[in-house]
């Protein structure tokens, strides 16, 4: 069970960081308390993982067939260390990129890489922010037209937006669980007798939920200082677009980053509102994170694998 701890740590870190993408604005704006938001988020992450997390497990486990426990330990620890490093460097993390990077590192070292699966995953990484951008533009236009052309009280308007933010936060939590649980436990598919992929997804979801409950407050409160300050309207559009995008990729079975989907959505809003509202420095950091995460994970896992092989040539 030791290798599983690396995966569970990864899930915990993912939960601590990604909860801000679904409930950050609502908590920072005191629409909902952190306690209520984190409990709702945790519950729906677990539900998402339990009902729809299995597809991602199949994809990640199919990237490179590894059956040795030390190899799995290398993969899970490399991904966990990468996430920790990125957090220390204050770059946005992507657990899915860290996991896939680590799998690819060992896959390359052992020559067992399934290139078709990797290409599919990379296409999805590129497609997720673009998809979120397009979805955000569509939601923005529809919601803006509804608010502009429907005579309503300022209280009704606030109720629609802030109340909507809680609803899409719940949906986003579900999508997060469905999409990202595989990052934590996907590589362990078929490794533990008696534990099905569905149960592995559930474990992954629980580890993400624990991250949300124990360590997500600081990140949630810091939300809005990133690429563009979010008001209720832009936050609703952003979280909706992110949640829909991530949920679509959960159906496809490829774990993608909620942070990158969020970035795509915010850029979409920035394009409609004018580029001046986007903080390009934050955007550059996100770009660095996007490129660095899989590379660091790949280098770490292949190096660690080489060290293991030197220490134990029979591996």
């Amino acid at each position, binding site marked *: 069970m030791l290798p599983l701890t690396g995966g569970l740590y990864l899930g915990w870190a993912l939960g601590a960081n990604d909860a801000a993408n679904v409930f950050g604005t609502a908590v920072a704006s005191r629409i909902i308390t952190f306690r209520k938001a984190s409990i709702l988020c945790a519950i729906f992450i677990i539900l998402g993982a339990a009902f729809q997390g299995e597809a991602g497990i199949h994809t990640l486990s199919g990237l490179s067939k590894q059956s040795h426990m030390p190899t799995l330990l290398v993969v899970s620890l490399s991904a966990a260390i990468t996430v920790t490093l990125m957090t220390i460097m204050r770059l946005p993390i992507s657990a899915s990129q860290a996991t896939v990077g680590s799998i690819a590192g060992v896959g390359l070292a052992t020559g067992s890489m399934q290139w078709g699966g990797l290409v599919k995953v990379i296409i999805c990484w590129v497609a997720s922010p673009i998809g979120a951008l397009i979805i955000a533009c569509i939601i923005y236009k529809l919601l803006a037209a509804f608010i502009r052309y429907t005579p309503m009280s*300022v209280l009704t308007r*606030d109720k629609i937006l802030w109340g909507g933010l809680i609803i899409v936060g719940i949906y986003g939590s579900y999508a997060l669980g469905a999409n990202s649980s595989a990052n934590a436990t996907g590589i362990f598919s078929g490794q533990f007798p008696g534990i099905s992929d569905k149960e592995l997804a559930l474990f992954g979801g629980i580890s993400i939920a624990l991250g949300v409950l124990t360590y997500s407050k600081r990140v949630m409160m810091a939300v809005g200082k990133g690429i563009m300050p979010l008001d209720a309207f832009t936050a609703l559009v952003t979280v909706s677009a992110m949640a829909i995008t991530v949920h679509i990729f959960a159906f496809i079975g490829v774990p993608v980053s909620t942070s990158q989907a969020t970035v795509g959505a915010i850029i979409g809003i920035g394009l409609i509102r004018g580029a001046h509202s986007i903080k390009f420095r934050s955007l550059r950091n996100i770009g660095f994170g996007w490129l660095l995460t899989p590379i660091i994970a790949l280098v770490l896992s292949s190096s660690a694998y080489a060290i293991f092989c030197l220490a134990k040539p029979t591996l």
Partner: protein
Amino acid sequence: MLFISKQKEIQSQISEYCASVIKCMDTFQDAVKLYCDNSDRKAAKASFAEVHKAESRADDIRREIEVLMYSKSLFPESRGDIMGLLETMDRVPNQAESSIRMIWNQYVTIPEQHVDEVLNLVDVCCRAAYAMVESAEKLFSDFTNAAVAVGKVDELESEGDRIEASLIEKIFSEKSNNISTIVFRDFIKCVVQISDRAENVGDRIRIIVAKRAI
């Protein structure tokens, strides 16, 4: 559903508050008219008391709304904006009452030759207050058009300033300058502040709408 009923309760209280502000301005206009027609203090006393009563009623409703907003779950942003709006709106009936109190306490005499202009100034200030109420009510029915109604408040405020300047110039151009002239000048300044305060409310409404602009 629970939230909708709470919101309706708050909106109905705000409508009641707006009606009380209009009532206060109506009684204020009637009281000044009565005083101009007959400057007997005793005869005017009852109408002055009416203004005070209407202003107190508006105050009471505002306090009830504030308590209601803290006890009912409104979103923090809406709560802050509406509280600020009501506080600013409340200064309008307060100013009307101050003007009436000034007439009573400082024995203001309105010279016969300036009665029409004073009544005109009071009328403009009251219309500015009505326009303010109209735009505030728009916030609770069709908020995107609330800022349009504020334009009327601005126009009336400028009109009030123009009448004030002309009136003050006239009273000081007359030879019989004495303490009554100074008190009369202060009274005019006091009245014109009604439209200034209505304009402040208009500015706040603009900010509320701008904050929610898409």
